[in-house]
């Protein structure tokens, strides 16, 4: 005969059942810590701390979506644009400012709305026939982006096209909407595309994206915010290279230098290369162009080369060379270079002058 008290067995069974039930139906709570949304330049930590982690994650996605669009607008190149910001008072403001910082924009703290690139934003809730919809707006100077998003469970999805105003250059913009698919969904669908100044552009592709439960990625496999911005920037430069190929027959070579990157992965130019670019740019004048030859791959799809070329183009932009005056040349195989070759990597920079 057992000496176990009679109340122990049911209690144990209950506890085990409770424990197992907790683990078999885990609360898949998406969330980000407050630090992930905290801008380095200025913040109000209490605002973020009081907000639910899931809401922070949703706002981070919305901010990422808006900023990945902004970096593709030619007037808003992160390498040349410095934005004026005030201390954010809301979680959305924190998420936006942090995303702007991580996208590479220069940020200047101002006390009011000083500056031609002053950043303002708003979040407006609407009750519609299809439920509650939140309209997020971001304005930088005269450029404004706005889009509606809807919350479904722990996930957030766009519920309108991205409306872009204040610029004519929206034809080549690719929205970073895949980040919403990674949340997964139960047969959810959302519209993806951009419209300019409130009017649909026939050149723009508008599609409906379906989200299924099998689309859901584990949190650690989802695209990182910095990669979303890097891809958006790279896309811009690739399209820019195709769009603005100059007619080199109208130009003559003037000067040339070969920058050496320490290895095939680094983006660090080093002080010597920076000095050479500075000296070369010293003689740049309005009608000149700079051609960057970085790609030595045989198949023309060398991403590492493209990254180095973009790095040099950004350096030129930082020194005052307009983006339209520097051109990343297509891949041209000059020598055999194996993909695993990590030796110093050359980038040729040629200064052309009109004939």
């Amino acid at each position, binding site marked *: 005969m057992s000496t176990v008290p009679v109340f122990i067995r049911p209690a*144990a069974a209950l506890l085990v059942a409770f424990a197992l039930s907790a683990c078999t139906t885990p609360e898949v709570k998406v969330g980000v810590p407050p630090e992930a949304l905290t801008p380095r330049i200025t913040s109000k930590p209490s605002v973020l701390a009081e907000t639910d982690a899931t809401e922070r994650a949703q706002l981070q996605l919305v901010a990422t979506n808006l900023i990945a669009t902004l970096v593709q607008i030619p007037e808003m190149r992160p390498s040349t644009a410095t934005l004026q910001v005030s201390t954010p008072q809301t979680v959305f403001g924190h998420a936006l400012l942090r995303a702007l910082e991580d996208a590479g924009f220069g940020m200047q*703290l101002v006390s009011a709305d000083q500056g031609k690139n002053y950043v303002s934003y708003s979040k407006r809730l609407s009750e519609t026939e299809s439920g509650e919809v939140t309209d997020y707006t971001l304005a930088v100077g005269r450029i404004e982006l706005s889009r509606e998003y809807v919350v479904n469970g722990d996930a957030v999805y766009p519920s309108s096209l991205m409306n872009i105003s204040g610029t004519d250059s929206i034809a080549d913009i690719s929205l970073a909407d895949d980040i919403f698919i990674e949340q997964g969904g139960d047969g959810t669908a959302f519209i993806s595309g951009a419209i300019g100044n409130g009017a649909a552009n026939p050149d723009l592709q508008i599609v409906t994206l379906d989200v299924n439960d099998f689309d859901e990625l584990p949190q650690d496999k989802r695209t990182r915010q910095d990669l979303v911005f890097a891809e958006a920037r790279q896309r811009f430069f690739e399209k820019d290279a195709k769009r603005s190929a100059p007619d080199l027959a109208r130009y003559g070579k003037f000067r040339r230098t070969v920058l050496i990157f320490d290895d095939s992965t680094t983006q660090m130019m080093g002080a010597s290369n920076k000095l050479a670019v500075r000296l070369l740019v010293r003689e740049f004048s309005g009608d000149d162009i700079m051609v960057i030859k970085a790609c030595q791959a045989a198949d023309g799809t060398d991403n590492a080369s493209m990254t180095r070329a973009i790095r040099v183009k950004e350096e030129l932009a930082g020194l005052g060379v307009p983006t339209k005056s520097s051109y990343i040349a297509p891949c041209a195989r000059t020598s055999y270079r194996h993909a695993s070759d990590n030796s110093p990597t050359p980038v040729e920079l040629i200064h052309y002058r009109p004939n």
Partner: protein
Amino acid sequence: MTQSVDDTAGRRPWFTTARLCILIPLFSIGACSTMDSAESGLQTGTFGSEERVETVDQTILDDMTDIVTQLFEPIDTTLQVNYANNDPLLQYFIDQLVNSGYGIQRVSADQGANYVSYRRDLSKADGTSTINYRVFVGAVEIARDYSVPRMNIVAPASVFRLSGTRESVTVNDRPSGRKIVTDPSLSQAQYFASLQLDEQAPVISLITPQLVERVSARSADGPSLQALNSSKIEVNNLFYGGGSTFSSLLDNYQRVHKQVIVFGNDSMVLGDTNKSLIDQLVDSKFRNGDIISLVGCSNGATSLDIGNEGLALGRAKRVTEALLNRGIAREYVLDEGCWAPVSAGDAFPSRGVVLELWRENA
């Protein structure tokens, strides 16, 4: 005793069940809490370091901030910092720059014309610690030594050394609870040349079609048509005439001063007199934004192995270094050469450097 053992054995299932009751929920909670902490949305870089910056370093970096704000207009300037760098000293320095009104751009590598970095070297001699700080903002370098006579107290141990700028600065060495001034004569700035990266700088070739034509037409035994100047930029030999290699740069400038620095025969030694002439030029005539063009010359017979080319460009380099040593940024010095084994007549001196000061049209 035996009874006691038997009692324990009889109660074992009870204890086991009770232990399970405690352990399973604990384990479950532990496991579930682990899952929670692994969850996150989009991942971002780490936030700035929370480490505390020593008072001594704060005082020094405040000093540096004061100089930076005099060299770069805060409202119009964006500075670049590497976002992967969570060094607390740099974070503190950036905070001071933000509060001064600068725009801050976080970059993935060393992008930007005003990329900010610093170097801190500590040395100890005669029981006194000396900290050497060098702050780099683009092409400008700001350096100063500080001694630490007592805990949390610093004293300037050198003047401010500035490179890459001729902007005048006021050194505000006001004594405070964190700073003492033992030698008021150190409260000033001096200019020097930062030549650390000259050797590694890549060559900039001149590839104009005219040059290519002239190279193909040149005689085999005549003086060379082009060579590298002190910035490793290929320049034309002006003995053959033609305009300056940098003429396009001077389109919007007018010449406001010209002088010739004369060297000894087969010599690249500047000498006190020439140094004094360069001092006068820099101190009394040069203004920020001016450009100095100089042509080093060696026209006539020479017994040196480096020949006329080496001598001419060596003289130009020597004067360039003297100008950089006085704080003029390399971008504002255009050095070229004129060399031949025969006289260039009135066009260029036989053994001198022609200096011209150019100022942007109003």
